[in-house]
């Protein structure tokens, strides 16, 4: 059985066309026309990746995203109307891992999905040994982070981000580098992906997210993990 993608989109023709194109790319696609249907479908048989249009009748994309996040760390891609609105940040804060703007090329979507699955499944063992930084203990092979021996629940993207920063503690990583290594974007990726994920990461790993001890901003040029 192939990788299953749940597509949540209310416009029937778009849904059909996107499904067609994704199936051409070799994915299994499950469709949902409303937020309610999407949640039911997801509970009945969890997908490997979820694609959610923000503009949905009934419960909107943000709410669907938050509901899924309560129980699952499945990669979520949001489809927004525009890239420069608050929608993007709101979607990322609701728990999305990445976003696309309409109209997008399904080829691009496939590339995004592959990048996400790569970070979920094929995290190359050996790039990072089991590391202890202060109270944090990162076990890349088990995909686990402990703080004072207690497990923290990170999404796959948050985890990959932390591992990336922990690979060279104290070194400043620019947004561009993090975008490329964690999301697979080129130089022109959206830096807000990094910023919002760093913020989310801090709420989980930091005792006081407002004045971070581990994940530190370096003069607006990037981020580093303070050893």
């Amino acid at each position, binding site marked *: 059985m192939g990788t299953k993608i749940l597509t949540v989109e209310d416009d029937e023709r*778009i849904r059909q*066309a996107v499904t067609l194109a994704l199936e051409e790319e070799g994915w299994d696609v499950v469709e949902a026309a409303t937020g309610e249907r999407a949640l039911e479908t997801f509970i009945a048989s969890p997908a490997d990746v979820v694609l959610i249009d923000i503009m949905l009748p009934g419960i909107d994309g943000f709410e669907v995203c938050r509901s899924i996040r309560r129980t699952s760390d499945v990669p979520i891609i949001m489809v927004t109307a*525009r890239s420069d609105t608050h929608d993007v940040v709101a979607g990322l804060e609701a728990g999305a891992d990445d976003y696309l703007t*309409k*109209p997008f*090329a399904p080829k691009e979507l496939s590339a995004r999905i592959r990048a996400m699955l790569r970070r979920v499944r094929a995290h190359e063992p050996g790039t990072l040994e089991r590391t202890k930084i202060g109270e944090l203990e990162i076990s890349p092979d088990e995909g686990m982070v402990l703080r004072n021996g207690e497990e923290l629940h990170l999404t796959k993207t948050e985890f990959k981000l932390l591992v990336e920063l922990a690979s060279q503690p104290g070194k*400043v990583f*620019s947004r561009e580098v993090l975008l490329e290594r964690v999301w697979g974007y080129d130089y022109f990726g959206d*830096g807000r992906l990094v910023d919002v994920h760093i913020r989310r990461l801090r709420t989980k790993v930091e005792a006081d997210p407002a004045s971070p001890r581990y994940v530190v901003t370096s003069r607006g040029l990037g981020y580093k993990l303070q050893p």
Partner: protein
Amino acid sequence: MSRQRWWRGLRARVTVAYAVGSLLLSFTVAGATFALARAQLLEAAESQHREQAYTNAKSLRANLQTALEEGGSADGSQVDINAFLANLSRFNGSQQALLLNESTWYSPFTIQDQLQGYPQLIDGTRRWSVADMRIDVAGTVSYAVGIRLDSINATYFEVRSLADLESTLSSLRAILIGVATLASGAGAAFGYYSARRALTPLSRISTAASAIADGDFTMKLDLEDDRDLALLGSAFNNMVDAVGHRIERERQFTSDVSHELRSPLMTLTASVEVLERRKDSLPDVAQQAIELLSHDLDRFQRLVQDLLEISRMEAGAVQLQISQFLLIEFLENVMTQSRNPGLLMNFSPGDSDLVVSADKRRLAQVMTNLIENAEKYGGGATGISYEVVDDDVQIVVEDNGPGVPAEERDRIFERFARMGGVAGNRAADAGFGLGLSLVGEHVRLHGGQVWVTDRIDGQHGARFVVQLPLGPDRALHEEMAS
């Protein structure tokens, strides 16, 4: 404005009109007043003198008759006529003369010479017994009355100076001229003041109009304090509302249309992609058709994106996502993306660690659009360079095409403007002219400027310059170098 003559201004014209009007009016009134006053004063003085002369003439006749009867000769040689005449002058300073028997003049004041200069006065007394006229005595206007005394065959003359009256009149004239001059000045001042007052609403209207021209449709004109202008004010405000609503509607329309276009575009994009994957199994004609479809779908998509971007800019909804980045790294990535192997980058070595603060993706669009523009009209960009000039950085894109004619250099950044002069370069896929307009808008949003000139190295071609202000963080953070 500065080239207009001051006297062509409305205010100056109203002031001059008031000044001339009040000048004419006040001098006419003053002149009429003076003429009337003079006529009446003269009439009054003359009639009084005449009465006095009658009285004097009667008393002289009586005295002379008695004296002549008592023993004087008919020619009056035994009678001191001059003494009688001088006696009459005692009270009012008048001067007397007597012409006896049409031949002999008597006068203690020797005014007979002057009187003889006015034969019409003497003739008048012969004809009508009484005659009077204004005469000139040693440069002074005087009033002369002649009365025929038939019983003694003599004519009595009395002359009285009008000098007092003339001096009164000249004082009056001076006063009237002064008052008229003041009135003219006051008229001019009032004209200036009322013109200014009348023009105050106009200057408020022009302030409001320029604010509206700058896109502020919330501007309201408050002329309620003036009943005559309140109507204009409310008409103006209604017009602004109407225009504002209309523009808002059109903005909304552009935005809605672009949004609506995205759903079918999404379906089209996904479907065409499926077709493209299956292209090889289709006949040649169908393959060609798919290529055309795919190419123009791409173009259509970009146009919709540009339109959306512009309608968002017009609605003021664009928020820049400013971040700091190395300019050289940014430009290298732009060049990699443009897939133009002939492109060279120039910068002075000292600027290799220049950091700029900008919306990276918008600036990338600026660069991409400039490079694409060079491809369409300039035979491809030949070089990208940057240079720090004072507190700004100038990023330059050059090509060796035909350049941009001087008269098109401003227009080229307008919407849907294409270089009309470059015949033959307008290929079928030249695209719509939104690219440079977006360049202009993006650069302006960054507080910068964009312009085009000829190349400065003497070669032919266009030189597009994007000038951006450098933030305070222009030096590279040392940690980035590692």
